[in-house]
């Protein structure tokens, strides 16, 4: 009994790291708004089969029905498909590509950045030249070519976007490792006889996660935008409804059906906004330099 209250008091005086984080995050109203958007999107994606009023592919003779038509809240497109259902199902592609492409970029970027920053010297020089090369090549054009050559399955899209998005993280992680490898705790680990791999990934990495999470969130937003752009160029996965693809269809019917453009585009903008706001808020909550203001 006494021990329990002692533990409770200890917990009170030393709140868990996540509690501290949430306390700081919560104060950023825009960040909370962004988080709400992201959570709603996730729910929309997961619950798509139950939420969508129609099959997103079911064509009908009711072409170009305006919004608020009975049974079609956001209207229908040039093939009589329900726009709302397309948006709900489209969230799956955007989220899948966003998360998995960002994850791919993270893995490559962290590995390259860590090795480059930790070892320095010739390894660093070579890796940074390669990073620079990938930064210079216009991502969108290269992605377009790869998809045009190799086809546009969902898996390929994720891989292409991920592989083309890592340089930014690599640079960030490299900078962090450069400053951390000179700190006493890294010397300590070395004295204890830890191997380089262990120092890099289980000693330093946990200390540099905050900026990585921030970049990850912003990268998800970028990946969603890039996927939508490819979809708009008609290079999305043809087997799943996507927001970019819907805007591609809308382009030919702008004069006839404004709703084909307005609603899917708003969905993209909201999703990107959500992840951007979350990234900014995490940054503000974890970066002591930004806490004032």
């Amino acid at each position, binding site marked *: 009994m006494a021990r329990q209250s002692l533990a409770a008091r200890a917990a009170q005086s030393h709140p868990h790291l996540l509690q501290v984080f949430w306390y700081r995050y919560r104060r950023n109203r*825009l960040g909370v708004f962004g988080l709400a958007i992201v959570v709603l999107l996730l729910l929309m994606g997961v619950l798509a089969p139950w939420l969508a009023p129609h099959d997103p592919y079911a064509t009908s003779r009711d072409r170009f029905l305006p919004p608020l038509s009975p049974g079609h809240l956001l209207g229908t497109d040039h093939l009589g498909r329900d726009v709302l259902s397309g948006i709900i199902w489209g969230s799956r592609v955007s989220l899948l590509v966003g998360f998995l492409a960002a994850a791919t970029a993270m893995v490559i970027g962290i590995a390259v950045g860590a090795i480059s920053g930790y070892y320095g010297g010739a390894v660093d020089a070579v890796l940074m*030249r*390669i990073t*620079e*090369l990938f930064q*210079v*090549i*216009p*991502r*969108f*054009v*290269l992605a*377009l*070519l*790869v998809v*045009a*050559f*190799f086809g546009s399955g969902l898996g390929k899209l994720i891989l292409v976007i991920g592989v083309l998005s890592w340089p930014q993280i690599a640079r960030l992680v490299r900078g962090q490792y450069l400053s951390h490898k000179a700190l006493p705790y890294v010397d300590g680990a070395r004295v204890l006889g830890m191997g380089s791999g262990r120092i890099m990934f289980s000693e330093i990495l946990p200390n540099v996660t905050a900026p990585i999470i921030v970049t990850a969130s912003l990268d998800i*937003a970028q990946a969603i*935008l890039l996927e*939508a*752009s490819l979809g*708009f*160029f*008609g*290079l999305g996965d043809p087997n799943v409804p996507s927001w970019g693809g819907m*805007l591609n269809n*809308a*382009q030919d019917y*702008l*004069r006839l059906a*404004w709703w084909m*453009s*307005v609603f899917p*585009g708003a969905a*993209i*903008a*909201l999703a*990107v*906004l959500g992840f*951007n*706001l979350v990234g900014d808020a995490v940054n503000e909550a974890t970066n002591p330099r930004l806490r004032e203001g």
Partner: protein
Amino acid sequence: MSAGNAGGGTALWQYVVMRLLQALPLLLGIVVINYLLISLAPGDPVTALVGDYPAPPEYIEQVRADFGLDRPLWEQIALYVLNVFRGNLGFSFANRVPVLELVLERLGRTLLLMLITIATATIVGITLGTLAARRPRSLLDTASTGIALAGYSIPEFWLGQLLILIFAVGLRWLPAGGYRDVRLELSGLDLWLNMLKHMLLPMFALSFRYMAITTRLTRASVLEIMNSEFILAARARGVSERRVFWSHALRAAALPIVTIVGYNFSFIMAGSALVETVFGWPGVGRLMYDSIFYRDYPVLLGILLLVSITVVIVNLLTDIAYAFLDPRVRY
């Protein structure tokens, strides 16, 4: 000459040469990546070099021989690099012109759109950002934050469609697309004004994101500078607040803004490709869209190559401009 008396001019010159030398392997890397794409593409690599558009069989055989497609991979790469440096990027059968000629012509129109966009966005962005920084938390500051958030999140091509819906379809103020009115016989000033009218909407669609970036960065930069010690020192010396702002702070704050152009150039280019497609602006982006449709691969490869080279050049110019403006960079 000892290091001590090497003047600023000499150091800058050395820096420029160094950056030029660093750009060379980058260019080579771009060409090699281009070729690896060709050879890794499924099917016969000659398809990637000629495109799927019907081409005469003699030409296909000639390409096979020119690019040594029956030789080992490294020889192919060497031949490809050689061909590229000779300016031979192949022939577009969908357009009936050499690829280099076609892409360069379109690149000019894209750069025209981009330059006007960059100029407008930079002026508006710096103005907004400076005003916001001078009065933090004012209505204007909040508004500029809102604009910035929207700019980061709204895809250019959707913004383009919205602008068409509002200004071309709804209000009928401006044309929905194209480069100029083809039905009118125009020349001189009238032609330029007509082009400008066609350029307004794509320019706005393209500049919004970029304006947002410039506004944010200017605001942060001015705020940081205004709180720095040399400003405090200037104020302590009794320099008037107006002078502190205009001739001390703004000059230092302008530095990072220079880099935005260079380091976002390839993103603006991608944005331009999308916006051109929305508005039917006959630039590189529109050409890309059409080439995908016709499976005109040599054109796509040519665009990747020339756009990458443009980005390298712009980055180089940015670094040099930065070094020129900021004496601390010269080492």
